[in-house]
């Protein structure tokens, strides 16, 4: 399994709970893609966010986020040192 980062940016400040609800509704999709949500960093102004997932590949995370209608800027696999 890979560690995958998703960068998100919003024009207006968002609340973590709203995004979490969207993600929750699409839990079946994430599960099908075997994408597991790990944790999230949200900037103080609420306009930038980084989510960390565990998944077979970055593409799975992209597809799952698209299906869930979760907006994102970039998705990439990372290595932790």
């Amino acid at each position, binding site marked *: 399994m*890979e560690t*995958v980062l998703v960068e998100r940016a919003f024009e207006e400040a968002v609340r973590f709970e709203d995004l979490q609800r969207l993600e929750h*509704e699409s*839990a*079946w*999709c994430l*599960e*099908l*893609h*075997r994408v597991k949500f790990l944790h999230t960093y949200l900037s103080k102004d609420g306009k930038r966010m980084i989510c960390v997932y565990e998944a*077979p*590949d*970055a*593409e*799975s995370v*992209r*597809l799952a986020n*698209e*299906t869930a209608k979760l907006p994102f*800027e*970039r*998705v*990439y*696999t990372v290595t932790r040192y």
Partner: protein
Amino acid sequence: MSLQLRFLGEVEVARAGVRVELPQSKKTRALLAYLALTGRTHRRERLCSLLWDIADDPRGALRWSLSKLRTVVDDASTPRIHADRHHVTFAGEDVWIDILHVRDALAPGVVQLPTETLQELDLLFRGEFLEDVELSDYGDFHAWYVAIREESRAMRDAIADELRQRKPVTRIVAPVLDVSKGERRLIGRELELARIEALLQTRCAHIVVLTGDYGLGKSRLLAELAARVRARNVTVLGVRAFEAEMGRPYGPWLDALRQLPGVSLETLISNQKSRDSFFSTVSDLIGARACAVMFDDVQWLDASSAELLHYVARTNRERAVLFVLAARGGELLDNEAALRVLRGLRREGMVDELELQLLTEEETVALVRALDPQADAPRIFSESGGNPLFAIELARSRGDGAGGISRLIRDRVERLPEDAAEVLRWCAVLGQSFTLRPLGHAAGRAIEPLLRALDVLERHDFLRAEPSRKDGYAFAHDVVRRAVYQELSEARRRLMHLRVAGVLEDAAEIAHHAALGGDLALAGRSCVEAARRCLRLFAGAEAEALARRGLHYAASLPERERVPLLLELHEIRFAVRRPQQLDELASEIETLAEQALDLDLPTHARLGFQLLSYLRWEVGGSEDARRHMLRAELVSRTGDARQRIVAMAEAARCLVLLERDLPRAEAMALEATALSNRAGFEPFAIPDAVGMLRLHQRKFDEARAAFQHALELARALRQRMPEFTALEHQVMTEIDAGAFARGALLAEQLIPLAQRLREGSEVPIANALAALCRYASGGHDELEPDLERLRTVDAKQRLTYVLTRAADVDVARGELVKAKQRAREALRLAEILERPSDIARAHAVLQKE
């Protein structure tokens, strides 16, 4: 006329005034009546479905019945049954038939006929129409039978009323002979008993098949035998099969096992994982002791019990186990399951056959004198012909035998106290055997008066306590029940059956009574419930028979009840066996699923589409990942119609994209399509999912059409990402179809589209696909830079796709080393992604030498 057929009463056939012996199979006699009275040409299939279940090999059974009937009705010079491959006709122009004769005679009107004619006609009514043929579980036949029976009753009543008006008569009722309860000595049958007892001396298993016509004393003989065997310290398990319980799998066996000390039936059943383990547990229980298992009325044994009997007998060959099976020989021929088992056991040399004969004059006289020393025993012998049941009834009634045994029994009922007679009628509606609780509820009696009535009925030998069941009672003889039951008017019967259906718990029994009471919706639903129970007990044949019966009931229900019921019944039939005539069935189920949608029955619509998808993918495909479906369904149930369509389509697309559970993906795509046709709104995911499903099936033209449609939808909606996906899938279709030139053209269109999308794996995959098409069309291998980019953006699925296809091209070009290198990488990725098709492709390349 040389041939005479009599159906008013028990079926009789006479040639030149001499009675001919009839086939004893009830269905064969029913067939004769149906052919003779309808007088039409019938299709063979129609006759098969009229009287036989699928599991019985109906065509074979029909052939057999026709061959038996030919010996009865055909003359050397006049064949009357004409049958070819497809049709059967009974040519009866020169045949005299009682009911038709009465019908013709009454045509001018009953008042026009002279009294002598009316008296002659009255004598033709020997009993109810087809008195010995009751096949209430065969709906079409039963409906026909009831119609004719009602007509015959109306004719009989009209004649009787007219005669009464012309010449009033007072009926003389003979004084009642009170037969007190208590064991009567068995008369005769010493030879049979000695033969069976001798078998107990050998230390191995024996199966005794005891056959004889009704009333010859099979049950009495079994009771005597049980007492003698018990005296030898052998465990006796005595049970009966019941006609109304042929849909209750293992019924007699469960009754038998209940008699074993220390056996908890509930634990026994709930511990079983499979049919095999259930069978071997029962077999061990029986084989663990010296044991005699006695089955009465085996002609009504259910298919599962018959199979279990075969198993237990074979596995206990070397043990001291005795099976005694008593059956009405003729009716046994109607039970294909029991026959099959007996044939098997006969081949293994395990069966001893005993056919009970009529009593001799000496024996009959002894029997009659034991009941009533004053009776005219020689006359009774000549009237009864040595049939002990008939002789006993004659002795009791002190009357004559005109009108047959049924009339004697009815006369006895008339002499009962009214309350007991009424309870007896409820018993007759409940069936050959019943328990106290439903009887009390149905008859509306408190326990005390009920027990008093039962006591009277037992004392007069109408009923007996049934020791194998708690609070169980059974009719002393099936003939008794039939005589009582047939006296009830049709309207009364229906009401009584409905009441009974309302107080029972067993679904199969409820189905039986609800159908006879005319509540077909309840009957159908109960069939579903009973069939599901059968499936849990691994009794496929019974489940299928119940489902078929349910389909019959459902056919005449209003749409709202019919559609969901039919879908559930089809589901049960799928569970039993792979359906035949897939196309026909698929279109029927598709219609039903659409109707369910129209009726706003989403659960049943979903079931329909699911069944349809199984048909499409053929039965037996992968069935994993049910849990995924549940999540998807959860989603699809929320929101408004549009959201539901989108959610379902996306779920379908997701499943197929990931190669998880394709049949379910198909089901969801079908349902989403149907819903979207109604809503006039089509999301991109539907054609895209359908296209991918067809691509998996390698139906390239259908896949192309679906992706083209998806592309048009995406363009109309100006959605870039879906547009890219549809085009990408078109390229993949061409590659998989081997049309690389066309693939290359499309891939060139894909590149500019990818560049307008946000950062991701779209640009590298577009370039990689274009490079792959060029390579496959004979160009250079320029794939590596794009593959590397796919690795960098970590798009394993797209990477795997290109690697496996590139490896195929490598093989075609003879570059095995490179091919295997790519296949190894693809295999590793496909295993991470759990994609069976890519794993298989990679392995195929790695196998190459």
